[in-house]
């Protein structure tokens, strides 16, 4: 059985949803406290959503220095799969494991709603079960989801197929949600083993939640 580790910081609040969603994908799941210095042997590490350390200073800026993050960086640098969702994405950019940064939404609102996103690249394990151009519906819930990267960095992302998903309308046309550069909603690192996105796939896994599109996004990592 594949094993996933879900991290928990003070202020994390999506660890149980993430655990539930991963278990449905057949993972054995262990929640690991941020003060641990080592990771158990596992096939995937998920940095879940929430408000680690109250988002003080900048979202993710303090969590990235938690003891467990050294082990996560080592795990990622050795090729291990890491997925950051929402606050997890912010933590991974702050830690330098993913390029760019997440700023306050342009309209200054906390945006919480169902959102369409378009798959940009699927030549990675995370989105391997999705089709390029496919439109998925997944919830977003964030105040600091405005992805920023400079022009040179953006070119790099494009050249290496590192853009995972973009915000769009229901027909797949580009849509400005929060001010992100080129409507970017998620990216991966150059080696394609570290993934980060603002939308919450773990909240779109059963029809009663309004969408099951999140399943496709988690199936890839479970395969």
């Amino acid at each position, binding site marked *: 059985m594949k094993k996933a580790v879900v991290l928990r910081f003070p202020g994390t609040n999506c660890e149980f949803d993430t655990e539930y969603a991963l278990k449905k994908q057949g993972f054995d799941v262990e929640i690991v406290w941020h003060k641990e210095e080592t990771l158990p042997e596992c096939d995937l590490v998920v940095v879940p959503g929430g408000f680690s350390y109250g988002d003080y*200073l*900048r979202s993710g*800026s*303090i969590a990235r*220095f938690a003891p467990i993050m050294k082990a996560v960086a080592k795990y990622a640098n050795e090729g291990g799969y890491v997925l950051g969702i929402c606050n997890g994405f912010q933590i991974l*950019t*702050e830690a330098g494991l993913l390029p*760019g*940064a997440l*700023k*306050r*939404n*342009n*309209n*200054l609102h906390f945006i919480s709603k169902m959102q369409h996103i378009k798959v940009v690249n699927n030549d990675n394990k995370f989105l391997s079960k999705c089709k390029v151009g496919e439109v998925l519906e997944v919830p977003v819930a964030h105040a600091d989801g*405005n992805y*920023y*990267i400079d022009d040179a960095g953006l070119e790099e992302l494009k050249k290496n197929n590192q853009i995972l998903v973009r915000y769009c309308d229901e027909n797949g046309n580009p849509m400005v949600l929060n*001010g992100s550069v080129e409507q970017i909603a998620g990216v991966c690192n150059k080696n394609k083993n570290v993934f980060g996105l603002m939308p919450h796939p773990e909240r779109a896994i059963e029809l009663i939640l309004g969408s099951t599109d999140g399943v496709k996004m988690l199936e890839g990592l479970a395969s």
Partner: protein
Amino acid sequence: MKAVVNVYLKEGVLDPQGKAAHHALESLGFKGVNDVRIGKQIVIDLDATSKEEALKEVEKMSETLLANTVIEDYNIEIVE
């Protein structure tokens, strides 16, 4: 010794809070406001024997934690 660190979004990175304050100032009738940038000020009380030492230490703090240099610039003022 006290160090004052000012952290701002980089020139060219849109500052939505500054923009909102700018609009508010204009609608209140303030004229001639060209730009508003909102940053944060971090005041640090630290043990250091010289200004140089303090500056070096606070620079390290800024690069490591206080600013995210992907999107932010900072300046440091050492106040005795």
